């Protein structure tokens, strides 16, 4: 990993060139016109999120983050540090109070469709599944709304079922699965569209060893095809993740990122 990348992730260093040109939503972005500037999978600068109007509710505070192609990044932090909020902002689910996020140069609001076609976000909550659908129906439904082309969809769904060891459960209703099995379904949903940027919020929730292995394999595949993966989990999990080859590890504290 290059030094400039390390610097871009810290808050104590001066921002690198791409971060020095904040752009308001709707304003033309000078960097888009620079043909020699290749946008990374994720570029966030001056990112701030304040809940409500109290200054004390500043969960993210002028954060800078760049994810380069083919990298796996870990962000840890204590409960309530703002990891989920950060991921939601990066995913375009909620807007930042200040600052900017670009994914391959795309804006979450202005280029919403293209943005969501290339990004996948696994949230930490154990929800988000339709209880009465079978595993296969669930993945097929998500592949449809994720705009996986019709000709590729059946193969993508079956591959996802196989990859996350769901073959025997494929026709079972989701509300009859264990928590770990449900998490594997959620992982299958996350990876079925072959995203270029994957944001994972505590992805090992309820997973056993086999489930974790399927997750690691899927993450590796995204990294190998020059995508980027951001893995967020509590600080303590870092010790358990030693087998994973993270390109960068950072800690989210007081709304800012600190390189470990």
């Amino acid at each position, binding site marked *: 990993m290059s030094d400039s990348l390390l610097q871009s992730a810290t808050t104590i260093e001066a921002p690198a060139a791409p971060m020095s040109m904040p752009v308001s939503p709707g304003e033309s972005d000078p960097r888009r016109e620079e043909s020699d500037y290749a946008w990374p999978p994720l570029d966030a600068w001056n990112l701030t999120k304040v809940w409500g109007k109290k200054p004390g509710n500043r969960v993210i505070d002028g954060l800078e983050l760049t994810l380069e192609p083919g990298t796996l990044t870990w962000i840890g932090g204590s409960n309530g540090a703002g990891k989920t909020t950060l991921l939601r902002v990066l995913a375009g689910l909620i807007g930042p109070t200040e600052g900017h996020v670009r994914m391959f140069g795309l804006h979450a609001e202005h280029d919403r469709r293209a943005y969501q076609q290339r990004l996948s976000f696994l949230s930490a909550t154990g929800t988000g599944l339709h*209880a009465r659908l079978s595993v296969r129906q669930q993945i097929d439904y998500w*592949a449809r709304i*994720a705009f996986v082309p019709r000709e590729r969809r059946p193969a993508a769904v079956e591959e996802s079922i196989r990859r996350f060891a769901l073959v025997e459960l494929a026709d079972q209703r989701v509300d009859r699965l264990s928590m770990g099995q449900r998490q594997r379904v959620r992982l299958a*949903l996350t990876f079925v569209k072959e995203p270029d940027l994957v944001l994972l919020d505590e992805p090992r929730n309820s997973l056993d060893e086999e489930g974790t292995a399927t997750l690691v394999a899927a993450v590796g595949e995204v990294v190998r095809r020059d995508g980027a993966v951001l893995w967020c989990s509590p600080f303590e999990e870092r010790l358990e993740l030693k087998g994973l080859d993270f390109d960068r590890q950072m800690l989210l504290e007081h709304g800012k990122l600190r390189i470990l």
Partner: protein
Amino acid sequence: MSTPTLYLDAARGVLARDWTVFKSYKMQFFSQIISMFFGLALFYFLSHLISVESFGSHSKYFAYVVLGMIMVQVLQSTMMVATGLQGELVAGTFERVLLSPFGGVAGVFAMMVFPFCMSFISALITLTIAVTVFGLHVHWQTAPLAIPIALLGTGAFTAFGLIFAASAVLFKRVIGGAGLMMTGVALVSGLYFPITLLPAWLKWFSNVQPFTPTVELLRHTLVATPLAHSVLADLAKIVGFVVVCLPLGVVLLSQAMRLGQRRGTIIEY
């Protein structure tokens, strides 16, 4: 694949999902039919009890009220999108729609398709029971015209569904509002009694929503109830509501979603 095909495919995915969920509750449909039957029986006997001069005969009041009951079913399906959205927010499944290229607004539109289809099926079953069991006389010559009128009316009602969905996004709880809307529409749209019975100040409300002209035209085409206004005037009203309210509903819903995303409250429930 072209963009419209992708959207169509996604909408079919939502429809298939809703159908699968619906048929997984095996007794739901049968209980709805039984409920319809009891509703029809109730008004059939009430129509024999009440003598209303303006209707001429008991069977004419029964025919009048059957169409009102059908309209209530369509109205309920309109409201269902908001309550369905509320349920999806709680289940966390709407987050997936928001995080998809299909998006929240298109997702809400797609969520309306299944309840509308079901309300049309329910309407057909209600009519069939009313004809075969309770002897309702349908005016078969003009009955096919009810289909385009119902479709046009659906366009106007969709706007109300979108506005309620926007409320669900912003205020999270819509059940009270939906109930208020249902009883309000039942009162001023002439679903169970003619609007001529209403005081003048309340009659105003009968003219500023699409339910009154839709139910009037449906009654006229299906059971030959005389119209209070001309066909063209009623049609113009419905088209006007579609043209004005549908884009308004889309704008309100997208603005509600945008606001929810900016505030960070979009996935709260």
